[in-house]
């Protein structure tokens, strides 16, 4: 299915320009953060995600009681 079937290319570009992550990045750079500092934040986030994936793959399936703990006090 054509992802552009319901909208024009211009409309798509207009909305891509409103990407909140890119806008925040621009604002932070404007406010005095350096590119190196931004990159460090990005790397930190990636590392956290990769660690979480690794942890999930190594772990056993959760137990019934562990699940219940997340539901009841």
């Amino acid at each position, binding site marked *: *299915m054509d992802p552009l079937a319901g909208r024009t290319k211009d409309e798509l570009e207009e909305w891509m320009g409103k990407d909140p992550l890119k806008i925040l990045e621009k604002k932070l750079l404007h406010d005095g953060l350096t590119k190196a500092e931004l990159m460090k934040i990005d790397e930190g986030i990636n590392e956290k995600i990769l660690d979480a994936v690794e942890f999930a793959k190594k772990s056993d399936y959760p137990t019934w009681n562990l699940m*219940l703990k997340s539901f009841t006090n």
Partner: protein
Amino acid sequence: MAGNREITYSKAINEALREEMERDENIILMGEDIAVFEGVYKITRGLLDRFGPERVRDTPISENAIVGAAIGASLLGLRPVVEIMYMDFLNECADQLVNHLPKMRFMSGGKLEAPVTVRCQYSVGRNTGAQHTQFFPAFYMNVPGLNIALPSTPYDAKGLLKSAIRSGAPSLFLECAKLYNLKGHVPDEDYTVPFGSAKKIVEGEDVVVMALSLTVPMAVSASEKLRKKGISVMVLDPRTLSPLDKDSILDAVKKTGRLVITEPDCKTGGVGAEISAIVAEEAIDYLDAPVIRIATPDIPSPFSPPLLDRYMPTEEKMVEEIEKIVR
């Protein structure tokens, strides 16, 4: 003529929509991604091509607006069939579905009819997480004026959907995603299945198992296992919850003296609670054993496969519980 044609549950629903739209040009379809994309489960496959965008309409992601627009269209003579993508999302349109649709006739002193059919699928038993696996038919049993169907076979799916669409009353049509690929006999010729008529799927003497939708095929397997152990199990499928075929349920209880209700929704306040109350009111003297409910525990559905296995009603749980009350 009748032949042995077998088609899937999802194909049966698609055929019902197509045939009804051929029969009556006032029938229109509305829903999220049902036209160009043909529905997330492809239930509306081919219908945009056949009937065009005037009658097969993609809508914004706004369930309350979809049902509201359908009510308005129905008051002016159309017969809208709405698809809500997941049963969970019925909560998004509860205002129109509960506060308006089933009250139109009553509030107008019988002058207005709102023949809207709302279809949705429920996904309990699938690994789609707690917000996309809910099944709560009992909510809507508590709403007078809304007919509710929950077919367990391709035959009933096609016949009940046709009845819902032809009815002048609003209907909620609950499809089971786990049954979409189930195959079964569906005749070539036109037929309908009436609301308010339970089906005895297996004949039996010792106990009646009233099963709903997804749990019907499980109950049938359990009855076969128990037959080998000398226990004769009747399996009864109510097919619709509103209206409910109370007489068939009471007759089955009077005949067997034991009632097990198995349902793929949470036990507390579920359909089984209502059935148990009806039996307590009208046939308690016929019971030789406590009523047993085999439902899901009162927690949201887990995602993790081993947890989900333990969460669901199963054939094994049915066999175990039935043996306890029959022996």
